[in-house]
């Protein structure tokens, strides 16, 4: 009987498997794509087989229901017809295949395989392990062996770290290729304030999505400084503002948005900011920094003006 060997093989295989992982091979992948694809194909194949298995299970259940009804019906009509139905001469390849995959003894003949066990009235049959199920089990073990070999004993599989580095390289190349095709070359040296109302309104929505939580919905200030007065901590004017937004002021909690917003968007939001000057929103934060006079295009240092802590007497509190 085949069954004698099944369990020992299953156990031995699953015990031996983990040994494979002790060796961690440094990877110097050759033919990466070919092998990566192969692993992918194997994964997909296993998944496909498993899904087919699932469908088979459903089919089997369905057919048992049908069979039951058949037998019930035939029982009423007499045993001769049952016998006749089993004598049906030709079986389709499918029904042969199906039978070979399930090998379940029909309910009508289950007395032959009753083991005689009786646990509080529960009896047990001696049906064979369904071959499709067993096949799935073996297949998963084979997959495990191949996988562990590929990723731990050979250079075929890549570690997550290597995959990551590769992904980053690919992404960088793609982004560069894309950027080469677009002329979006704004930087802090050539940036100019936009005046197109559509651009300004795009800047406004970028502001409310990203900046308003610290600088207030109307730019009145909050955790971050007031955007509507004439005072600037890091310089006013499109170039300075563009620079501050792009590089942030990490010590004070201002985020370097250059990592999250594209240059043209920073230009839009900076241009929007400049339009806020003198809008006098409610609950303004006290001025911080120095007056920046855009007309003079140079910083006028009025060091004595800013006394933020003392100036705010209208603290709303909580």
């Amino acid at each position, binding site marked *: 009987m085949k069954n004698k060997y099944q369990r020992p093989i299953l156990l031995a295989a699953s015990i031996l498997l983990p040994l494979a992982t002790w060796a961690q091979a440094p990877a110097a992948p050759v033919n990466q794509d070919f092998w990566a694809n192969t692993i992918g194909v194997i994964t997909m194949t296993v998944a496909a087989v498993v899904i087919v298995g699932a469908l088979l299970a459903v089919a089997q259940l369905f057919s048992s229901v049908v069979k039951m009804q058949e037998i019930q019906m035939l029982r009423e009509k007499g045993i001769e017809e049952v016998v006749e139905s089993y004598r049906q001469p030709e079986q389709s390849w499918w029904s042969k295949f199906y039978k070979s995959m399930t090998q379940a003894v029909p309910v009508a003949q289950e007395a032959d395989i009753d083991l005689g066990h009786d646990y509080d009235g529960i009896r047990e049959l001696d049906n064979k392990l369904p071959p499709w199920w067993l096949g799935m089990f073996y297949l998963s073990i084979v997959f495990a062996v191949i996988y562990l070999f590929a990723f731990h004993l050979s250079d075929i599989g890549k570690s997550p770290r290597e995959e990551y580095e590769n992904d980053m390289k690919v992404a960088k190349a793609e982004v560069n290729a894309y950027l080469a095709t677009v002329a979006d070359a704004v930087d802090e040296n050539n940036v100019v304030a936009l005046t197109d109302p559509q651009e300004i309104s795009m800047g406004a929505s970028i502001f409310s999505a*990203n900046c308003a939580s610290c600088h207030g919905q109307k730019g009145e200030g909050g955790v971050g400084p007031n955007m509507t007065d004439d005072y600037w901590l890091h310089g006013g004017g499109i170039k300075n503002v563009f620079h501050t937004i792009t590089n942030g002021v990490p010590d004070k909690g201002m985020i370097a948005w250059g990592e999250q917003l594209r240059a043209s968007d920073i230009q839009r939001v900076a241009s929007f900011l400049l339009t806020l000057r003198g809008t006098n929103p409610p609950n303004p934060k006290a001025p911080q920094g120095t007056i920046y006079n855009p007309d003079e295009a140079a910083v006028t240092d009025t060091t004595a003006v800013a006394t933020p802590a003392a100036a705010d007497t209208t603290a709303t509190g909580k």
Partner: protein
Amino acid sequence: MTQVEQFHYDNAIVKKFAYATMLWGLVGMLVGLWVALELVFPALNLEKPWLTFGRIRPLHTNAVIFAFVGNGIFMGVYYSLQRLMKARMFSDMLSNIHFWGWQLIIVSAALTLPLGYTTSGEYAELTWPIDLAITLVWVVFGINMFGTIIKRREEHLYVAVWFYIATWITVAVLHIVRNLEIPTSGLHSYGIFAGVQEALVQWWYGHNAVAFFLTTPYLGLMYYFLPKAANRPVFSYRLSIVHFWALIFIYIWAGPHHLLYTSLPDWAQSLGMVFSLMLIAPSWGGMLNGLLTLRGAWDRVREDPILKFMVVAVTAYGMSTFEGPMMSIKSFNAITHYSDWTIGHVHVGALGWNGMLTFGVMYWLLPRIFDTKLHSVKLANVHFWLGTLGIIFYAIPMYWSGITQNLMWRAFTPDGFLVYPNFLETVTQIIPMYAIRAVGGALFISGVVVGIYNLIKTVSSGRLIANELAEAPALPTKHVAEGKEHWHRWIERKPVQMLIGSLIVVLIGGMVELFPMWWVDDNVPKIASVHPYTPLELQGRDLFVREGCVGCHSQMVRPFRFETERYGEYSKSGEFIYDRPFLWGSKRTGPDLAREGVGKLKKADSWHYAHLYDPRSISPGSIMPAYSWLTKNDLDTSTTAAKIKVLRQLGTPYDSDYELTANEDLAKQAAGIVKRINEEKPDLGLPEDADKKEIIAIIAYLQRLGVDITVQDQAGNQ
């Protein structure tokens, strides 16, 4: 031949466990509905500490696992074991100690978890005194079970009993190893494992809590109650043998699939993945043996609600044990992990497999021990359909939301920016799914209410047969083989060998994975710039644990472009060596916090203050609870010394006697933070004694996150 003996089954204990199952099931599911609604309407947190999501989500999981399913297990085991052993339970007193002890544990969990006493390991949240109580009650259960098995009148152990034995021994091992901890006070402790080691222990435990608390005992129940209810022989004895041993052997290895792409060493991740895949067949063995046992009874499934409950339960078991291995495939896990997919997955198992089987069993068993008939078959059918629809309305929105959110996380523009750089956008997108999920949960619960009503009516129409007369011949003193026996029959006559056999089988996987992690230093490469937490950060971290922040915020950046772009450098195992408990998390309802204190995620102290006080004032649309009490509660610094001492004992390199001066450093750091906040945002109006408040400690901790590894980057010493 042997004399036929008369004896009585104890049904009173079965009744008690059945009532407890209903009560805690309802409570646990209602808490679940509440937390689900909190995600849709954050105002439902009511700014009550004990009602916030972070604290009562663990209450929900513990209640449904250990209170609902736990009592369900004991109900089924106490009913079936007596009958399979043809013997009354070993000791009525132990049965009652077991029952009342377990309920006491549940009540103490229901009190301590909302009050914030937690160790934060999933399904192992309870504090050390409760851990001890669980150990004691579990031993009582074991003695009672084995006492019954030893004095049995049935020569062989039926497959259900194999599962009960494996359950008992494995849960004992898991519980003890997971909860090795040193107390710092009456309700607080630090675990002996830290960081990546603790992570592996946690998911070795956590995954096998699913395996050996939610699965194997319920397979045992299935093997008894399904053939009984269907009145059909079990399909295949051989299949029982193979799938039992294979299941318990393979299950124990699969834990690392909760840690794919984390800082866990690659070899452990691979083992977790392949063993999870190999689990399909053994799991399906159980499903097949259940469904194929119904061959010849399918016509009755249409009419008998009990069989319907069982069929859906076994089918849900088959579905989730197929889904689980698929989710363990690394490339698929990259999508499902940290997302709602996982939540959908566990609820197919919990609502479908455990929930439906529990009620199927109760509908079958309660009329029997009360010598009556089910009050209403119609209501049972109503319950069945409400339950089934509830599962569908629960699971589908979760799959949908999981995929949606993950696709949003990983979307890049052609010029290399995240399409949704603001995490909040990916949350507000899925809130409608959360609403539908709550509807699904409500449907399931309304089914449960109908079911409980039906069972109460059933019970009140009958009378409990507290002691049910039974008879069986005494156990033969010598085994007489009838013809040629299957080799496995031997161990079925030897309960002790069965116990030891299953212990050995489950220990192998655990040892191969855990021992190298504990004792081979190479598995956690040290990082020179990683330092212990300052006393203030340490206290803040424990507050982070108390509030259950880890329920929504992971601290584990995986090596994916879309994660490093959003959060920063991916996490390394060496970063976590002083983390007790580890806080990697398993779900991101909010953004990852591993790099919260550095780089582009770094925020001002005043931002954190205002955000914790009222998240929606800073991020409109956020569903995070408001933690206003952190600004009012004084930080308890009396615990600092004990914590530092215990941590030093565990290997954290605090200077000797540092505990004597630690609180001075703590006060200094707190004062600095308050000063900064006052400078940044004077209008927050901090109170005079703001530096004594809990919120300052949490801010200190949040600002520390990610700092160590960044220091290293700047110094350039790889």
